[in-house]
């Protein structure tokens, strides 16, 4: 769909010429997020600098019936910040200010384009931090984190993004600017903040966010344990949780992943191990010391080849650097990969890893694994080369099978990355018709004309304007719990 001159001119009036991008080259680079498999260039990109401008853009688009696609840093993995139906993409990178830091009330209010890590950087010298730490925290925006309800390694103990959002300013699809929640946690009425977190832009654009800041723990210890097999490592995970230890993070990497990271930045992971566990404990110094010893002992009992405690902050940072850049490091092994994000009950970890291995052999594709073992959130990365169509096919088939295997073991279709275009058609595997229909009506309250990020999150049938209709037979009730 091409935009009319009227819309372009009106956008330019709102934003000035520097705030509107309509060149073919400009539209091209905005055609996908990190999931480059899905491409859809917007007709125009708008780069607002204030909530007022965002409001004006949405009103204009509603009047002209033009789709609006919000975009943060474009690090999403689900085909979220891309425009399958064209329209106006609203890039929020220029709205990246910290509006207020309120340490007595342990919160901060920021604009949506602010990079996650920059918030922690701004308050860490005063002993505070922003807890949600997706591995993309050095690039992803807080607005994007809120909209995908991002998780991260440390969410095992601290909770995911929604647990840290106190309030939002939202420009709804109807063009209203509303305040949801606020600094004070106890509020009368509906928890609309919680409802809007994870909406992936389908409710409108988040223009300001009030987040909780936490006091940094007194002590942190990171333990690295390597194992002869994934099973051994999974047993150690179960052992640690069973012992009543709640690590701040509990991450697992498999052999292929270790190889990619060591070929790249070299984080000092032991080569040759079949699996590595990264266990982080934080809290009062004495407690952390005792827990680290206990966790190390459990790893040894479960057959660890080597157990190491990071000696200082530099070594700890290096161990984490490898983990955080794992996905990027895969570029050294293959030009492309599909990243699956699914969850299984923790007890099923060894079983699902065996199944993933079988799938990889069956389809003749390499699958690297890096995941949040503590909460059973898997990230199998299926490698392929897009110049070979049959490789793409095999990867796609393997990807489907992994997802179905997770669901069969009682898992969910997505853990933390969100739904986007990628998983929209998969939601019926998980939710009943009544549930989906309700979500669909709820969305209509925020976005009456369904112009906000169309095609994402909810399964849609472009042919029927009515509401959700199931795309395929569901699994039996309870199969996904």
């Amino acid at each position, binding site marked *: 769909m091409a935009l009319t001159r009227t819309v372009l001119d009106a956008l330019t009036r709102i934003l000035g010429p520097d705030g509107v*991008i309509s*060149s*073919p*080259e*400009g539209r*091209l*680079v*905005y055609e*996908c*997020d*990190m999931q*480059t498999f899905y491409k859809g260039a917007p007709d125009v*990109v708008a*780069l607002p600098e204030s909530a007022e401008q965002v409001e004006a853009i949405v009103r204009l688009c509603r009047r002209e019936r033009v789709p609006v696609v919000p975009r943060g*840093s*474009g*690090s999403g993995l689900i085909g979220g910040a891309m425009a399958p139906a064209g329209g106006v993409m609203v*890039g929020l*990178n*220029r709205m*990246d200010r910290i509006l207020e830091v309120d340490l007595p009330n342990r919160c901060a209010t920021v604009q949506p*384009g602010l*990079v996650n890590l*920059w918030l922690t950087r701004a308050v860490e010298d005063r002993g505070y931090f922003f807890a949600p730490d997706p591995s*993309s925290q*050095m*690039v*992803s925006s807080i607005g994007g984190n809120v909209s995908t309800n991002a998780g991260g390694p440390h969410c095992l103990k601290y909770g995911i993004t929604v647990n840290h959002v106190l309030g939002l300013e939202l420009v709804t699809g109807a063009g209203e600017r509303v305040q949801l929640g606020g600094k004070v946690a106890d509020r009368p009425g509906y928890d609309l903040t919680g409802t809007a977190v994870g909406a992936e832009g389908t409710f409108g654009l988040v223009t300001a966010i009030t987040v909780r800041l936490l006091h940094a723990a007194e002590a942190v210890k990171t333990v690295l344990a390597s194992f002869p097999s994934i099973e051994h490592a999974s047993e150690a995970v179960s052992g640690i949780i069973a012992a009543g230890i709640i690590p701040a993070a509990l991450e697992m990497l498999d052999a292929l992943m270790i190889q990619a990271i060591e070929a*790249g*930045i070299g984080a000092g992971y032991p080569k040759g191990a079949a699996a590595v566990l990264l266990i982080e404990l934080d809290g009062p110094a004495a407690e952390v010391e005792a827990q680290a010893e206990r966790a190390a002992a459990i790893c040894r009992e479960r057959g660890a080849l080597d157990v190491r405690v990071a000696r200082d902050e530099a070594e700890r940072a290096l161990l984490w650097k490898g983990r955080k*850049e*794992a*996905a*990027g*490091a*895969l*570029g*050294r092994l293959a*030009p*492309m*990969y599909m990243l699956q994000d699914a969850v299984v009950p923790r007890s099923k970890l060894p079983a699902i890893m065996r199944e993933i291995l079988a799938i990889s052999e069956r389809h003749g594709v390499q699958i690297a694994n890096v995941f949040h073992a503590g909460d059973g959130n898997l990230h199998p990365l299926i490698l392929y080369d897009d110049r070979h169509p049959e490789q793409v096919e095999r990867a796609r088939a393997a990807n489907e099978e992994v997802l179905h295997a997770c669901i069969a073991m009682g898992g969910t279709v997505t853990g933390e990355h969100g739904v986007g275009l990628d998983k929209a058609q998969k939601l019926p595997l998980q939710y009943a018709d009544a549930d989906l229909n309700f979500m669909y009506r709820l969305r209509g309250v925020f976005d009456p004309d369904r112009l906000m990020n169309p095609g994402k999150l909810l399964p849609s049938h472009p042919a029927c304007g009515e509401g959700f209709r199931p795309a395929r037979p569901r699994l039996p009730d309870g199969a996904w719990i």
Partner: protein
Amino acid sequence: MATVPATLGAFRGADAPDLEALRKCVHCGICVPQCPTFRVLGEEMDTPRGRLYLMRAAAEGRLGLTEALARHLDLCLGCRACETACPSGVPFGSLLESARVQLRRHGPPSRHRLLEALVFAVFPEPRRLGALLAALSLYRRSGLGRLVRALGLLRPFPRLAAMEALVAEVPRPVPLPAIVPARGRRRGRVGLLTGCVQRHLYPGVNRDTAQLLALAGYEVVVPAAQGCCGALDLHAGRADAFRARARALAAAFPDDLDFVVTNAAGCGSAMKAYGHWLREAADLGAKTRDVLELLAEAELPLGPLALRVTYHDACHLAHGQRVRQEPRALLRRIPGLTLVELPDSDFCCGSAGVYNLLEPRIARALLEQKLARIAATGARVVAAANPGCLLQIASGCRAHGLDVEIVHPVELLARAAARAR
């Protein structure tokens, strides 16, 4: 280099960007917030990820060598902060250079044609640069400069104004002997690149470099006939000129040297890439070292300097050559010197070769950020190992009346060494 004429989408013939290298980019965006032009402009086309996407689109035939493509690549500082950030090992610098070569050969005419012609006629030609600088200093001393500035005559020509503001005064030349003998225990024999800008604007840095190398045990050979290393040509996509200069430079240095030393980060990083571009200069490229790399391994007698110093990482040293610890370790070895870390020390100051002349608006925005961070450290001295950075930061400090001294680390080391005697 085997030059198989081929077409790669919009790229043609020799020196096309390597598609395999382009495909290493997994589009994760980790490099994006580290990119200075993203921080100033806030748009995807002017990020490393966006630029790679455009280059790849051109290589895959989805995009021609358009003016907009050229513009977004022109706006790139070539600082290579993205390479440091990238976990996939995307060689952004060489991809950018190849794409610029292609644009120059087959793309639309450059929008900076005139200024570039001036720059390339003068900067890499030591004798002409010397003449231009002499004229500039005459213009200053005659009072004409003050008059022109007072009347704002250069205001309509921001690029000329930028050039004028960059150079404060032109120092007297410091002649170097053809050979500086080693002192004490002999470590080897090295050649010294005197550089174009360095030789005219910072002759003292060359003298200090030679003396420190001698003190460290190196015999220093300074060929009189040496020309320019070609870095500016390389960054502008002038591959033929670059190769010619590299070839000439390789011929200017004797074969029996252990290393060829430079004290200009931009030169060092281009020379270290010689092997990628031409076989004849590969050996010289492999022997190239920054002076700070060599000094860090040597023992130097250093006397006290009671100074509070901060260190700015020149892009082409930190990102281009991955030399970060050596300069800091050396400065810390000076008794009495306090080294305070500069926040975001490896974030470009906006100099970037002649970028500050071609794109003064962005360069100025970056310089402002750098100055604010320098001021916040409370340091009285800023050390940086590249003449471009020294000029840029010094001109910013002058404009803001910021009372800090801008030096090359070897200047501090030389002062300290003088006190040890």
